[in-house]
C-alpha cells in the first residue's frame, strides 16, 4: 500500500512539473510579449510610449532574457511562494487570483458533488428498473447534459433568468455581498448561488456516470451471489445496496480523477458566460494580454489542484477497493 501511495505521489509531483513547463511554453508562444500588449493598449487610448520607454519596461520586467532563463527565474520565485506581479493589474499575482481559485474549486466541487448525487440514484434506478419509462427518461436527460455544450446552456438559462424572473443570475454573489469580507452570511450567499453553475457544469459528467453505474450494476446483479442473497431472504434493497453497489462504485471513484480536470475546464467557459468571479475569465484576459506571470500561475495552480484532486480520488479508491490495499503487501 505504501508503495502504491509513494508511486502516486511521485507521479503527482512529475505531473505538476510538466504542467508548469507546458504552461510556460504555451504562454510564451504568441509573438510579442506583455509590453507590446501594453503599448497597443496605451496607443489605443491615445497615450505615448516611446521606444526607449518600452525597452526600459522590458528590462524592468526581465522580458529581454532568453525564455529558459525566464522560466528558471519564475520557478525559483514560485518555490518561494512569490508568484510575481500581474502586469496588467499592477498587483501581486497572488492577490489578483486570491479568492478566485477557491471559488473555482467550490464551483467545480459543487458540480462533482451534484454529479454524484444525481448519477448514483439514477444509475441504480436505471439498472434495477431496466427498460422502464424511468430508465429511458433518466438516460435521455443524461444525454442532454452530454450533448448540449455547457456554455450554450449557461447562456440560455441566464437569459431566461433575466426575462422570466427579472433577476441577474450571473455571478456567485449578490451585489451587496460581493465586496464584503468572508463571513457565514457570505458563505451562505455563495451556497445559494452555486446550484445553477453546478448543474450546468455537472450535467455533462452525469450522463457518463449514469451509464457507467448502470452498466456495472447490471453486471453485478447477474452474479450468483446476488441470487443467493435473494434466495436467502434478504430484502431487495438490502441485496442491492450492500454489495453490488459497493463494487459498482469502484470505477466511480477512479473516474473522479478524470472528472476533475474535465469539470475545472468546463467551469472556465461557463464562468465566462455567467461572469462568475472564478479563474476562468481572468485566464482568458491574461492569455490575450500575454500577462505571463498571471496566466502561468493560473494554469500551474489549476493543474496542481487537479493533481491533488486525483490523488484524493486515488486514496478514495484505495479505501473502497480492498484489493489494492492487499496488492501492496505482495
Amino acid at each position, binding site marked *: 500500500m505504501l508503495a502504491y501511495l509513494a508511486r502516486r505521489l511521485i507521479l503527482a509531483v512529475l505531473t505538476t512539473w510538466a504542467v508548469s513547463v507546458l504552461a510556460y511554453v504555451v504562454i510564451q508562444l504568441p509573438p510579442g510579449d506583455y509590453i507590446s500588449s501594453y503599448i497597443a493598449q496605451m496607443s489605443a487610448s491615445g497615450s505615448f510610449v516611446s521606444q526607449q520607454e518600452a525597452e526600459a519596461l522590458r528590462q524592468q520586467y526581465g522580458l529581454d532574457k532568453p525564455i529558459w532563463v525566464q522560466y528558471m527565474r519564475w520557478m525559483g520565485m514560485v518555490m518561494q511562494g512569490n508568484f510575481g506581479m500581474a502586469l496588467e493589474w499592477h498587483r501581486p499575482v497572488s492577490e489578483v487570483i486570491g479568492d478566485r481559485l477557491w471559488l473555482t474549486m467550490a464551483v467545480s466541487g459543487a458540480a462533482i458533488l451534484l454529479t454524484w448525487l444525481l448519477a448514483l440514484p439514477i444509475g441504480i434506478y436505471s439498472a434495477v428498473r431496466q427498460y422502464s419509462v424511468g430508465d429511458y427518461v433518466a438516460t435521455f436527460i443524461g444525454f442532454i447534459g452530454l450533448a448540449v*455544450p455547457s456554455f450554450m446552456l449557461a447562456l440560455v438559462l441566464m437569459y431566461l433568468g433575466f426575462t422570466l424572473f427579472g433577476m441577474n443570475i450571473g455571478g456567485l454573489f449578490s451585489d451587496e455581498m460581493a465586496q464584503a469580507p468572508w463571513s457565514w452570511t457570505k458563505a451562505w450567499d455563495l451556497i445559494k448561488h452555486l446550484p445553477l453553475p453546478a448543474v450546468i457544469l455537472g450535467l455533462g459528467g452525469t450522463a457518463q456516470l449514469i451509464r457507467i453505474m448502470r452498466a456495472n450494476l447490471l453486471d453485478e446483479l447477474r452474479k450468483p451471489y446476488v441470487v443467493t442473497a435473494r434466495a436467502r431472504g434478504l430484502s431487495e434493497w438490502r441485496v442491492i445496496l450492500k454489495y453490488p453497489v459497493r463494487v459498482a462504485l469502484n470505477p466511480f471513484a477512479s473516474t473522479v480523477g478524470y472528472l476533475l480536470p474535465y469539470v475545472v475546464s468546463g467551469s472556465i467557459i461557463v464562468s465566462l458566460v455567467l461572469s462568475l468571479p472564478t479563474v476562468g475569465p481572468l485566464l482568458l484576459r491574461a492569455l490575450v494580454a500575454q500577462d505571463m506571470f498571471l496566466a502561468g500561475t493560473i494554469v500551474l495552480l489549476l493543474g496542481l489542484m487537479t493533481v491533488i484532486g486525483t490523488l484524493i480520488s486515488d486514496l478514495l479508491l484505495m479505501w473502497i477497493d480492498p484489493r489494492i490495499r492487499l496488492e501492496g503487501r505482495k
Partner: protein
Amino acid sequence: MDRPEDPAGGQEIAEREEERISVATQWQLMWWRFRRHRLAMIGTAVVLLFYAAVVFADFLAYADPGASEAQRSLLPPQRIHLFQDGRLAPYVYGLTGKRDPMTFKRVYTPDPEKKIPVRFFARGFEYRFLGVFLTDRHLIGLEGARAEEGLFVLGTDEQGRDLWSRLMYGTRTSLTIGLLGVAMSLVLGVVLGGISGLYGGLLDTVIQRIIEILRSIPTIPLWMGLAAALPNDWTVMQVYFAITLIISLVGWTELARVVRGRFLSLREEDFVMAAELCGSSRTRIIVSHLIPSFLSHIIAATTLAIPAMIISETSLSFLGLGLRPPAISWGVLLQQAQNIQALAISPWLLSASVPVIIVILALNFMGDGLRDAADPYGQ
C-alpha cells in the same frame, strides 16, 4: 442489451440459431448485435444523414452564405405556405422591411399581394459540386426571384445572410474538423498505444506516465493557450488545420488507453501464441491477428471521440480563439449569437445549437451501440 428470452419449447430453433452464430464471421455477429440496439440504429441513420449533408452542403444551401444585405438584416424565420387554392403549391410572401424608429427593431411585413412560388431543384448561386462539377441547382429555390432575396427558412443574421445556408456550410466545417481531428487522434492513439501495449517495459511505463499527465491537465486552459498562440495572420485554412491538430493532441490519450488495453490482453491469447509458434513475423501477427480483433473496439472508441472534438471546436470558436469569420462553423455561428440582442430580439440565431445537440446525441448512441456490439462478453 439482453437477448430475448427463449420462447418456451424452442429447442430446435435455439439449436439452429446457435449454429448460425457459430459460423458467422465476427463482423456479422457485430452487426446482428448492433441491429438490436434500436437507439443506435437511429443514431447511425442520423449521423449518416448529417455526413450526407456535408457532401451536399452546397446543394442543400439555397443562398450564397456570404451575400449580405442590410435591408434583410435580422429577418425572423419565414413561413412557407404549402397550399394554394387547395392544391399543393408551396409559396412565400414577399417581404418589406423597415427599422421601426421607436423600438429600433427591424420590422418585416409580408405583402399578401406578392406570392412567390417555391420550387424544388431550383436554380441558385453557382458552385462546384465535389469541387469539380460546376452547377447551380439547389434543393429549393424561388421562381422568378433570387433565393437570397425572398427565401428565409431560418431567418437571417445581422448582415442579412441566410441562416439555413450558413448552417449547411457550418455543418460541413464542423463535422469535417471532427473527423479529421479524430483521424489524427486515432493515428497517435494506435501508434503510441500499440507500442505501449506490444513492447511493454520501459517504453510502456513512459508512455503511460505521459498519458496520465496529459489526462490530469485541465484541457481548456491548454487549448486556450495554444489557440491564443496561433499567429493571427494565418489564413482561415491554416487556422482550421491548426485547431484540428490542437484538439486531437488531447483526444488521443483515450484511444491510446483502449488500444494498449486490448494489446495487453490479446498478447496473452492463445491464438497469438499459436501464430508466434508457427513462426509468423511480428508484423504479420499485428496486422492479421491483433488488429482485426480490436478493430471493433477502436471503431467504437473513435465514434465516441467525435462528439468531444465537435464540442471542442465549438467551444474554442465560441471563445474567439478557434475559427473566426469569414470561416463558417457551428462555433462561429454560435459566437455570433452569443450576445444580448440575439437572445432578446433574434433568438433564431441560436438555431446552430440544434444540429450540435442532435449530432452529438446521435454519435453517442451510435458509439454506444458499436461498443456494446463489439464487446464479446456482452449478452
